[in-house]
């Protein structure tokens, strides 16, 4: 399977806002931890939660950095209904034949170079993680609603739009971060320059908006418009860092929600709205997408420390180099308070990046973040299990396990 379909982007966010309800860290505040006086709030509760969860699920905690087998066992017990697909992707991709061709049709414009730039990432080499989730969710909801065995054209269109919004944000993010490679190839900005790359991103976004409008459903437009807003706000959150240690973790999770999970959550919600009138189903779809999305990004942040750049198709330790303190760093900082200063100065002194990396690998930051991701996956499975059993529902459950066990 091709390299980097997994890679969304580092940092993403999440906040229990009006339209995006949900847990920062699943669970409530606990007892004071090791560095009690200094910490409180979200970070603390999250940290303590880890401790308490560790005692509650001792087996789950013993996951190695690279093989998350036990978690998979845990999740699989939830999958009950008949037919088992070894690869949930295969099931999803059945409805996505010609996905990239159709996307390129949406980008039909006369300007050759601009067209070429916009199509650059729709080369069929991505694994289409988001579209797969979206069509699986569509089928799961349709079956839940009236046992319908079809995917509506509008639901498939949402899958396209999701991938387009995602790609548009990638193009802009790469300019913002001055990134030079993605998915094992040069970024748009490196090839064509920043000036044109920004316009390519805008073009993809506008084409996505046209496609969205053509679905002709005002509710769906509102739901997916929320994503665009979240993506921008997430990027703003990434720009600033919280001086207050206690707010850092909440800030990190909020960013994770906004930059990664919101797209998945709201796309899932959109297809559920198209497939089924029941608001409880919409909430199930949203919760699944949100929790899988956050888990996805947490693992992404872990892989930035544990994977090598060949696997990822882009350089690793990228977050540190950008001055971003992700989950593993924040957890490591609990064990090595001397990292605080580095976080504050955004790892901008010579040697900071390497030192921070060493600290993280010495700490249990990676395990803790992985564990947190498991918790989110668990929430996702809990949500989706409320739907009527179907191969697609079970594929979604399986997919959430794959999010945890991926190594690239």
């Amino acid at each position, binding site marked *: 399977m091709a390299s980097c379909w997994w890679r969304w982007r580092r940092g993403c966010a999440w906040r229990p806002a009006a339209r995006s309800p949900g847990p920062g860290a699943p669970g409530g505040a606990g007892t004071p931890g090791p560095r009690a006086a200094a910490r409180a709030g979200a970070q603390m509760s999250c940290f303590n939660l880890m401790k308490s969860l560790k005692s509650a699920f001792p087996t789950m905690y013993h996951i190695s950095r690279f093989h998350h087998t036990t978690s998979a066992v845990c999740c699989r017990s939830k999958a009950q209904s008949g037919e088992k697909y070894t690869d949930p992707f295969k099931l999803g991709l059945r409805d996505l034949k010609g996905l990239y061709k159709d996307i390129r049709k949406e980008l039909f414009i006369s300007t050759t*170079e601009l067209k070429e730039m916009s199509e650059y990432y729709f080369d069929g080499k991505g694994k289409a993680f988001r579209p797969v989730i979206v069509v699986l969710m569509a089928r799961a909801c349709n079956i839940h609603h009236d046992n319908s065995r079809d995917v509506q054209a509008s639901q498939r269109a949402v899958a396209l739009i999701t991938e387009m919004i995602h790609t548009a944000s990638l193009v*802009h993010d790469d300019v913002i971060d001055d990134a030079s490679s993605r998915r094992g190839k040069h970024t748009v900005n490196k090839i064509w320059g*920043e000036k*044109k790359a920004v316009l390519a991103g805008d073009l993809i976004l506008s*084409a996505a908006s*046209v496609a969205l409008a053509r679905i002709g459903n*005002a509710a769906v437009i*509102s739901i997916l418009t929320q994503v*665009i807003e979240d993506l921008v706000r997430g990027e703003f959150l990434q720009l600033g860092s919280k001086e207050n240690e206690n707010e850092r973790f909440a800030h990190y999770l909020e960013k994770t929600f906004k930059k990664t999970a919101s797209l998945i959550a709201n796309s899932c919600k959109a297809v559920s709205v198209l497939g089924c009138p029941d608001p409880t189903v919409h909430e199930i779809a949203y919760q699944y997408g949100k929790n899988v999305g956050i888990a996805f990004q947490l693992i992404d942040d872990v892989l930035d420390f544990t994977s090598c750049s060949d696997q990822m198709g882009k350089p690793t330790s990228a977050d540190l180099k950008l001055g971003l303190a992700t989950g593993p760093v924040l957890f490591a900082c609990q064990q090595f308070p001397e990292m605080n200063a580095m976080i504050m100065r955004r790892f901008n002194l010579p040697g900071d990046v390497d030192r921070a990396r060493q600290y993280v690998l010495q700490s249990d930051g990676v395990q803790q973040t992985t564990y947190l991701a498991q918790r989110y996956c668990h929430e996702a499975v809990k949500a989706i299990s409320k739907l009527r059993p179907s191969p697609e529902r079970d594929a979604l459950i399986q997919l959430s396990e794959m999010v945890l066990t991926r190594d690239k």
Partner: protein
Amino acid sequence: MNLRQQLWRVRRCLGAAAPPRRLSWPPARAPLSVGSRRAQSSGSPTHWNQVVSEAEKIVGYPTSFMSLRCLLSDELSNIAMQVRKLVGTRHPLLTTARGLVHDSRNNLQLRGLVVLLISKAAGPSQVNASCQNYDMVSGIYSCQRSLAEITELIHTALLVHRGIVNLSELQSSDGPLKDMQFGNKIAILSGDFLLANACNGLALLQNTKVVELLASALMDLVQGVYHENSSAKENHITDDIGISAWKEKTFLSHGALLAKSCQAAMELAKHGAEVQEMAFQYGKHMAMSHKINSDLQPFVKEKTSDSVAFSLNSAPVVLHQEFLGRDLWIKQIGEAQEKGKLDYMKLRETIKAGKGVTSAIDLCRYHGNKALAALESFPPSEARSALENIVFAVTRFS
């Protein structure tokens, strides 16, 4: 009367809280054309600021259509703080930002204004006007006011994104690489932020046809800006395009947003396809005529500071090239160059001696007349006269 004077009159007219007049369609009136009637002159530009603030009071609505919600947001104040770091560099974002803040008094915001005027000129539709008058202020529905704001947001977002610099082409005089990089970052984010706000506003309108119109306008605009950016060449050799290709590209970069916004304003008031088409035509031709007018300024102004550069892709130059033929034109550019530097004064005189300027004026009037013709299907009203006066203002050269 100049455009600016026209505009403040128009603003006042929008504020006049008269109830929407029901007028007979179609209006019985002789066709207007540019030149057949002189715009009445009124007001003095020296009182511009005072008049605008008065007008704002009457309208009960800020002249700046960028919503306060947007301007007061954490994100934008964050940006304002960050932009300060760029002072001293030559990042284009500074100029754009300065234009937005400093000029907010005088900022024409022409597109939003035209959307409001045409909304008022069309009035409520006859079909089901009875049930939707409740949110009408000064003869304009609140959704049409939102649309005007969205139009400005989209325009501004692209203005900001237009000012990204290529990091690999920086000169040492531009400023440190790090700062320019930072400038790009802020420019992308603020442009995206404005776009996200526009999308949000569109979604709230709950009209999928309007969303589609504006989204496709954005797509046109992006392509137009792309053309504009890529036609700015270092070596002063222009693209070999004829006037019809020029018109197509100019429609994308300058006309599509206004044309489609005007159409969308009609759709919001449930006007039929014909009225929508006329609104589209007015927006399109007015925008074209406006663009050609500004292209002509370096050639028609009495005292132009001679060294001022002008775009080699402007209407008079493209027409000049078309009359002359490609080879002669390249030769003329060569003659006007000295040590790789273009002598704009010399080139301007060369162009003025040809037929490019007069035929650009003709083209400007042609579009002006098309715009006026489109307006004839609207009932006579204060707002319609204002729209006409805008056309008179942009088609007057003397």
